[in-house]
């Protein structure tokens, strides 16, 4: 099923360029030099982000709607979950059967619309090869039909069959005798006699040989509309069917074409690239869909169309938002247009032009992108009522979200928000400090190094324990966080995201540090295993120290190493702790006298008082009494003999 609904941007912006007011033309060389500099600065990162955008469309790493600052993109509710049953799924599927599941179009909000139909004329334009004598390419226009189409139809009422259709014979695409036809394109011309308000839907049905089963199309509020009174208004749009290499450009599908006013729409074949200034005219492609009139139609190559229809259908890709889709090709070019820039000096011109828009019922937020490069040379681009990211066309819907997205996803640039009376200005400059270092969740690179960036399908991520907070205290989103900071420069130089964005390793084993091991220092200990062993062996090596002394010395050394005593005045405390901790061991090993010798020695070094010796020994006695079966464990004769002596006394 070819339900690809596409916005034919390719056809759009030659026309839209005409919408722009002409501006003063600075000297050409100057423009060119400036242009070079601009390209130098912004071309590479822009292309990178364009590529990344495409990649993310095909294989998204995450969904934008899951981001906290993009939560408004999440349209679904969980209300149904409570009543959900598995059978519901079946029912849903059954209900869907038979229904034509074409996205129909939002009816215009404009209820004061009086006219409900306009006339649509479809012409086949053949651009022929230039012959030597010709100045420009000869163009042949072949009218294929004229139909009345409904304007802003109610999508609920329209049925697929009810739309007018046009048929273009395939013969038209045969090479004509006089000229070699270079390319074919369809020219839609909608004319209406109307009043001042031209808002409405043009419902066109074009049928070529390729028969275009129609769908309603929509004309929205036209901002560029200036004429008043009972004049006939004409809107045109052009779409290429075969390009000059005779490749089929127009496949089966549903199309929505943006229409342009006739008076300033030369049918120009010049392609706009994002960096070119088209005759000094401004090109606001985003607005055309949201504001300009559009024509919707469905195109189908019918079976008798000599096998041309076998052309594979391009897979539709989700763009911008779910309500429309377009092939990649047009998307990027659309994007280019978004970056169309105008010198700041020019912007006053834009202002005057924009004044007219102000009369509109809804105040549109305007965002000016000001590109800073080459020592503060500036270029400004305006995006009107458009909170799409210029690099990845993500609809952020809110200014805060847009800024946050720009900062987080496009860190090759530095973005600074400047409040503007009409909306916002965003200063864009190159982030010189961008180093490409990983700024994602470090946990993802922890468990399976190398898998983190895998795009070959789902990857099992590291299990990480996070503290979940119910209604966490998030700082209220405030635009002030994007303002250029006062002491500014240093802060700006750093990457926006700081922290542990790399894989750490254990210093002893060089094994990757797992997230749960982050908190403890792997080689923190004052007394590492090897050092404890070392002190024991070192003491064992002495031949003139007896085993009892050695044992007490080892115990004491381990004790000091464990607690890391550093001061003389800690010693009394250290001794008591020693007696407390190792008392039982000392008694079991029958080291009491050696322990006493140690204490006396410490006293000789002036480190402990006799009172401490007394207390430590008393504690030892106490522990001895508390020990249950001390007698059994002690096989030493001394105690026995001591006991004997006591009896004797």
């Amino acid at each position, binding site marked *: 099923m070819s339900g690809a609904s596409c916005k034919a941007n390719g056809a759009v912006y030659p026309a839209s360029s005409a919408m722009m007011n002409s501006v003063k033309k600075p000297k050409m060389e100057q423009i060119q030099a400036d242009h070079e500099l601009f390209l130098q600065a912004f071309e590479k990162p822009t292309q990178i982000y364009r590529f990344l955008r495409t990649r993310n469309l095909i294989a998204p790493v995450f969904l934008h709607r899951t981001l906290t600052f993009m939560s408004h993109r999440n349209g679904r509710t969980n209300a149904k979950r409570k009543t959900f049953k598995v059978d519901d799924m079946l029912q849903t599927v059954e209900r869907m059967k038979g229904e034509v599941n074409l996205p129909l179009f939002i009816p215009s909000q404009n209820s004061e619309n009086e006219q409900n139909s306009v006339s649509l004329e479809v012409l086949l334009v053949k651009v022929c090869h230039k012959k030597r004598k010709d100045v420009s390419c000869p163009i042949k226009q072949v009218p294929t039909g004229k139909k009345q189409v409904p304007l802003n139809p109610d999508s609920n009422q329209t049925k697929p069959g009810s739309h007018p259709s046009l048929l273009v014979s395939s013969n038209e695409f045969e090479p004509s005798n006089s000229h070699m036809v270079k390319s074919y394109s369809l020219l839609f011309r909608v004319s209406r006699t109307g009043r001042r308000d031209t808002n409405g839907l043009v419902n066109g049905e074009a049928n070529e040989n390729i028969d275009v089963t129609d769908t309603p199309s929509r004309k929205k509020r036209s901002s560029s509309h200036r004429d008043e009174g009972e004049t006939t208004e004409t809107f045109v749009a052009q779409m290429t069917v075969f390009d000059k290499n005779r490749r089929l450009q127009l496949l089966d599908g549903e199309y929505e074409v943006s229409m342009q006013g006739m008076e300033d729409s030369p049918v120009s074949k010049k392609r706009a690239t994002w960096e070119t200034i088209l005759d000094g005219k401004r090109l606001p492609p985003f607005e055309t869909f949201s504001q300009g009139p559009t024509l919707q139609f469905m195109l189908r190559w019918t079976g008798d169309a000599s096998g041309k229809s076998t052309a594979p259908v391009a897979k539709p890709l989700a763009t911008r938002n779910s309500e429309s889709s377009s092939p990649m090709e047009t998307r990027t070019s659309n994007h280019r247009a978004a970056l169309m820039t105008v010198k700041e000096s020019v912007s006053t011109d834009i202002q005057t032009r924009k004044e007219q828009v102000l009369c509109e019922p809804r105040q549109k937020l305007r965002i000016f992108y000001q590109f800073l490069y080459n020592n503060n040379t500036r270029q400004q681009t305006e995006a009107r009522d458009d909170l799409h990211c210029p690099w990845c066309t993500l609809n952020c819907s809110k200014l805060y979200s847009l800024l946050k997205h720009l900062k987080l996803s496009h860190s090759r640039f530095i973005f600074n928000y400047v409040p503007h009376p009409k909306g916002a200005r965003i200063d864009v400059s190159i982030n010189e400090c961008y180093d490409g270092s990983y700024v994602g969740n470090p946990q993802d690179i922890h468990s*399976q190094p190398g898998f983190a960036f895998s795009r070959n399908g789902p990857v099992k991520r590291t299990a990480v324990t996070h503290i979940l907070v119910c209604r966490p205290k998030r700082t209220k989103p405030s635009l002030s966080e994007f303002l250029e900071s006062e002491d500014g420069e240093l802060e700006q130089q750093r990457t926006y995201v700081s922290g542990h964005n790399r894989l750490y390793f254990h210093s002893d084993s060089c094994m990757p540090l797992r997230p749960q091991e982050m908190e403890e220092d792997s*080689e923190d*200990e*004052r007394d590492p295993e090897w050092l404890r062993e070392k002190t024991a062996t070192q003491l064992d090596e002495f031949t*003139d120290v007896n085993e009892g002394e050695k044992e007490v010395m080892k115990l004491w050394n381990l004790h000091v190493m464990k607690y890391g005593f550093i001061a003389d005045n800690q010693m009394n*405390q250290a001794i008591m702790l020693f007696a407390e901790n190792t008392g039982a061991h000392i008694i079991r090993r029958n080291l009491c006298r050696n322990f006493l010798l140690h204490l006396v*020695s410490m006293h000789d*070094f002036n480190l402990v008082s006799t009172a401490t010796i*007394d207390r430590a020994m008393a504690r030892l006695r106490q522990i001895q009494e508390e020990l249950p079966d001390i007698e059994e464990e002690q096989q030493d004769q001394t105690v026995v003999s001591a006991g004997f002596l006591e009896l004797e006394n």
Partner: protein
Amino acid sequence: MFNTNRQKIMDRTDILNQEWKTRRIQPVHIMTSVGSLRGTREVIPLKTLNAVASVPVMYSWSPLQQNFMVEDETVLHNIPYMGDEILDQDGTFIEELIKNYDGKVHGDRECGFINDEIFVELVSALSQYSDNEDDEEEEEHDFKVEKMELCEGKEHPEDPPALISLSVCLSVCLSVRYKELTEQQLPGALPPECTPNIDGPNARSVQREQSLHSFHTLFCRRCFKYDCFLHPFHATPNTYKRKNLENQVDTKPCGLDCYMYLVQVIAERAKTPSKRTVGRRRGRMPNSNSRPSTPSVSSETKDTDSDREEGNSRCQTPVKMKLTGEAEAVEWSGAEASLFRVLIGTYYDNFCAIARLIGTKTCRQVYEFRVKESSIIARAPAEDEDTPPRKKKRKHRLWATHCRKIQLKKDGSSNHVYNYQPCDHPRQPCDSSCPCVTAQNFCEKFCQCSSECQNRFPGCRCKAQCNTKQCPCYLAVRECDPDLCLTCGAADHWDSKNVSCKNCSIQRGAKKHLLLAPSDVAGWGIFIKEPVQKNEFISEYCGEIISQDEADRRGKVYDKYMCSFLFNLNNDFVVDATRKGNKIRFANHSVNPNCYAKVMMVNGDHRIGIFAKRAIQTGEELFFDYR
């Protein structure tokens, strides 16, 4: 189709692997396709494992949180391997290296490859397997042949008779040697200089110095440890003066058998001393004579007797013993006697306490024993003669002059900093002949000089954080001494990390949590876990402390490796973190670093502290200037 695709994949992988090789990523291997037996082509999903980035090279090292002093190496322990190329192209380097060690390389033995130890081990190991004589003989033969071959480098004798005759004569020599060696190793035989265990069955009655000898000589007064890792020379406590004369005697009798009752009796009818005790002592002697005892004991006893006969001026008590008569039945074991002598040197006349500590004797018995031994017992020292106590006012003035002196010292200090060694020159003030003074070091609490010594550092009396030059300790590049600086908090809160004094971080080991990861610059790098403020202590640079000469020798090898962990500590010593160290050793060099190193005097030791040069954020890599 599949094959062409596969060819493409192979080509791509080759290119990738080439690239990855240069970037040190493990290459990817592709599974080969499997043609089935029946000739039909089977499709197998190609599963490529993801490349895993390899980590930088790390040579093994031991973790350490405090410096560790090692001796100079007199032999080259191993010939460093630096890849075949270097060995091939630059043999002279190794030669020079060996020359540094006077041509001595570890493992060189006079006799070739086998020494006594290995020999004994080998024979005993072999004898386990020998069921009869013949087997053993055979084994021995093999062993001998081997030994002969390797030791003398001779060729294997061709004819068996010659071999046998040779081996027979060898076996005789060897068996003699083996006996010699094994007999020497009889268990239980203590070397004569060792005092028997006081808790053991063989405890002997010995003098106080002998009992405490091991404790005194091995104890490091600076580390509070026995045979510490840092200070090769330990001062014995003999010369230390008692600060606190705690020989106060209990005024109340400790029990029924308290010596005080005796003393009271004596006071009533004090009369001539008895000489009976001698005999009793002799009676005890066989006990200790049963094993090879030190001759000093018996001679000591004689001395004692003669001494006592000369008359003991202080104690005239033995009368009582005779009167009570009980004492004669008391038998003093060697351990008890030794213990008594030890304790009497500490407690003097506090017999109650001594008895309590000995545990097996009553106070009265102790007292009586003391009477017997009275002459050899050290007296409670009188007040310190050499240093009269100073007056308080003078002390304060002294402190002020000290502070000024520190200032002067700081200003005039050259970059020569010498290692501190506690001075020990009895009865001489610390003047120009004192090693501390000549090395421009302060005397520390470990010095044997008086605590009033002019060269002592007085410590600070700050009430603030000791992190400005207002603090004399900070000014003198010293950490606050917890035994000197009593007001700043360096001596408080041992268990918590919240010390008001910020100038005692190294000694307390208040380091920051560091994390290891491949560096953004070169090799490994070290990253900080939590953010730190400017001038905050990060970690101590720990390692082996080696002499400057040793550092020169080691440095030659490290230079060749292009990787050195040497850090100059002072004029005498260098810290080498190559073999032992802590994580900060991975900090890389930078000309624009975020840390700086400072050698500080910390309780008598020079130690290297790494501090933050500016505020450092979470996860930043640490650098300091190596120069």
